[in-house]
């Protein structure tokens, strides 16, 4: 390892290499804090050529390596299993090209998601996939997990907005798939690279589609006595053939935290609120908003408020997108899940989550993408209490099992990472997993790139260890 470190220092310079244990501690986990593992080295390349050179050195020394963006993964995607080299892409952060007429941009993987929208909004464009972490997460990370966000119901997920990628393959060679015109002949390599969670290589450049800004928005806040009423309202909206741009739910527990943090004026005694947004040409939007309001009232909404100005609309979204951050007011630690169920099963699923929380004596807050059935139950706990950690893991497991039982998935947008490896055999048969293993081997035959991620490997065993952060002195 020290020989490799010396070569990395020589290749990139000391300003681009971290080796001190106190520096490495930051990189021992990501947003999923239950598992930690220190890397041996963290490097900060600034070009595809440097990334390729790092990969070749790792291969020569038989050391594992993996990419990392902002480390906002909630599934342990950035966990350096087996130590090795973390290749941080945060210094590759240039927006290389913006083409407003042809509606695409070319970016480096370290570009923060919201920077791109900020860059192009003056030209009436935005980058549509807007995960709640968009103020911190990188486009490279979005590609790795096929990130979603609140607007996927109408606008799709990351893969629907990626036209091409340049990627350093695990053997150190460079692959370019797709481009400004998207993919055409042969296999859709871009389509399978997006969502591959860093197991196919290290993405070094991305061609993304830009979306024209809608002419108008109407953003409504429905206030409901119960979560059941709110979920029935969602079903009603979809059944009416309306495709809102976004349909997000927050329950009472999360509302309390968000109200304390942002003072939006959320009613603290409501069982749940629904943010319901439609967008498009102004003509007809008021009517559509009116229809949604009627459906909400039919489903027991106590009141339906409207965001009357752009400022109000942005504040409402800020409250939603920073809800996870507000959770700190409720408990020292949290663990969230990313299950999906068919929309019509939402009421049942939320009742089950309540029951699971009661049985395990845990508080569970809910804020999520209700329109596409993608839940984020936030289990509140204190990670210093090993007993609580065990109950949290058990409750998480039960929640995901129920998602599967209702015909859903264990991950709508966060990825399998390491967290949900043991669910893969429940979602997929041995034949399915073997087929996926062969696909992975075509890209990553030695498994040195992002080992022990996404696909369970025989013998890989990540035991949930004791809770608690290793003290940084």
């Amino acid at each position, binding site marked *: 390892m020290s020989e490799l470190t010396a070569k990395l220092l020589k290749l990139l310079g000391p300003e681009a290499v971290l080796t001190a244990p106190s520096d490495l501690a930051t990189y021992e986990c990501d947003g999923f804090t239950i598992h930690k593992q220190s890397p041996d080295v963290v490097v900060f390349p600034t070009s595809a050529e440097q990334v390729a050179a790092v990969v070749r050195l790792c291969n020569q020394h038989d050391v594992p390596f993996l990419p990392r963006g902002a480390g906002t993964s909630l599934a342990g995607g950035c966990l350096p299993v087996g130590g090795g080299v973390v290749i941080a892409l945060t210094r590759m952060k240039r927006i290389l090209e913006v083409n407003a*007429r*042809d509606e695409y941009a070319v970016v480096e993987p370290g570009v923060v998601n919201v920077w791109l929208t900020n860059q192009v909004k003056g030209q009436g464009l935005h980058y549509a996939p807007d995960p709640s972490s968009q103020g911190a997460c990188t486009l490279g990370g979005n590609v790795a997990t096929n990130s*979603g966000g609140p607007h*996927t119901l109408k606008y*799709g*997920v990351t*893969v*629907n907005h990626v036209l091409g990628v340049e990627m350093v*393959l695990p053997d150190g060679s460079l*692959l370019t*798939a797709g481009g*400004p*015109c*998207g*993919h*055409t*002949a*042969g*296999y*859709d390599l871009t*389509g*399978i690279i*997006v969502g591959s969670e860093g197991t196919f290589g290290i993405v070094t450049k991305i061609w993304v589609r830009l979306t024209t800004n809608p*002419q108008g928005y109407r953003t409504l806040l429905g206030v409901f006595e119960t979560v059941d009423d709110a979920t029935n309202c969602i079903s009603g909206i*979809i059944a009416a*053939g*309306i*495709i809102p741009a976004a349909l997000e739910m927050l329950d009472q527990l999360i509302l309390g935290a968000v109200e304390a943090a942002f003072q939006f004026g959320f009613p603290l005694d409501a069982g749940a609120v629904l943010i319901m947004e439609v967008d*498009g*040409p*102004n*003509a*007809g939007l008021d*009517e*559509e908003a009116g229809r949604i309001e009627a459906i909400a009232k039919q489903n027991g909404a106590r009141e339906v408020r409207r965001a009357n100005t752009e400022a109000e609309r942005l504040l409402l979204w800020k409250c939603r997108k920073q809800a996870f951050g507000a959770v700190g007011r409720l408990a020292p630690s949290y663990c969230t899940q990313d299950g*999906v*169920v*068919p929309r*019509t099963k939402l009421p049942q699923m939320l009742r089950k989550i309540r029951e699971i929380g009661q049985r395990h004596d845990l508080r569970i807050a809910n804020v999520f*993408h209700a329109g*596409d*059935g993608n839940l984020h139950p936030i289990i509140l706990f204190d990670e210093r209490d090993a007993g609580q950690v065990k109950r949290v893991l058990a409750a998480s497991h039960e929640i995901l099992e129920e998602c599967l039982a209702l*015909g*859903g*998935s*264990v*991950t*709508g947008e966060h*990825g*399998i990472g390491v967290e949900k490896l043991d669910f*893969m055999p429940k*979602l*997929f*048969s041995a*034949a*399915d997993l073997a*087929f*996926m293993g062969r*696909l992975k081997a*075509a890209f990553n035959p030695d498994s040195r790139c992002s080992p022990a991620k996404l696909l369970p490997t025989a013998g890989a065993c990540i035991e949930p260890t004791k809770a608690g952060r290793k003290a940084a002195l």
Partner: protein
Amino acid sequence: MVPSAAPEGVDLVRKAAAAGQAIYPRGGNTLTDYGLPPTRPGVTLDLTKLTRVIDYPARDMTITVESGITVAELQRTLAAEGQTLPLDLPVPEKTTLGGAVAANLFGPRRFGHGTLRDYVIGIQFINDQGELCKGGGQVVKNVAGYDLCKLMIGSWGTLGVITQITLKVKPLPEARAALGASVPLTRLASILDVLHASPARPVGIAVHIKGQAGHVELLVLLEESRPAVAWQMEQVKSALRAAGLEAEPVAGFDSRLQELANFPLSHSPSWVWRASVLPSRVAEFVSKASSQCTELLAEAGRGAVWGHGSTSTPAAVAALRSQVVGGGGSLTVWKAPAEHRTAEVLWGPPQPDWAMMRKVKAALDPQGLFNPGRLFVG
């Protein structure tokens, strides 16, 4: 060989594989001109009896069907619930959904509605081991595992036999309308720019050229709520009028839209190709291509151009291709006279990403069971 259910198909694949025979999946049999001719003897696996609707929870806006269902039957099933797969697929009474997926077909409304890549959320297929495998699932948000749906879309039956597909679908729009205008070819670029600058968001901008007339037929397609369609119609009309063009509403445009959707398969020209170009270059490319084509159809919103030719030559097609490649695009020949059917003519010189595609094929079908030789992947 015509299985009537997936397990039969599995049996047939295993037997054929054991006997060392290649397997040629077949749906509506409409795209046999695409690609290179078969390289070795084998069996045809006809999927047209796999036509069942497996599950259709309309209120979830998803549907699971067997791959041999025709596009027309699928759309009828969806329409009964006020829903649709908003893609323009050719010859829908014959084309199977599995075939459309394998070929990644799309039409004029790609600009507003995307392609099959944006609708397939789950897929089941028979692999080279004679196992029934699946990717994706039944829900619209799902990132578990590798995206085998994307792998299969456009794979031309070279990685397995698709047996079942789960789609997310959309509600039928409240209103639809089309505006048509005749545009001099010399003015096409500026007219497309005018449309791009308009606040209207058409779901399709189709440009059709027949012969050497010097004029193109422009069709602007709108789908939305009734007020939004009416407003957008006015926006487009006045923008075009300001540019000196009179656009008229087109009544009964469904049949015209289906004609345009049929373009890849219509008229039996000797050459058919499809190019991907940047939207800003559609007009320029269409101008250059029109001299060697009997007919052209462009989807000008995202940038795709279909060409029919009768007197093309490999050199002329290669010249068109190099223009397109220079602008970051590509050109694929979908049909050519038998004597010109080579990889170089159909797809051009080997591209750098072909090596990775060949590795994928070699990993997933090392014996070359499925459509061997059809694509440049092996």
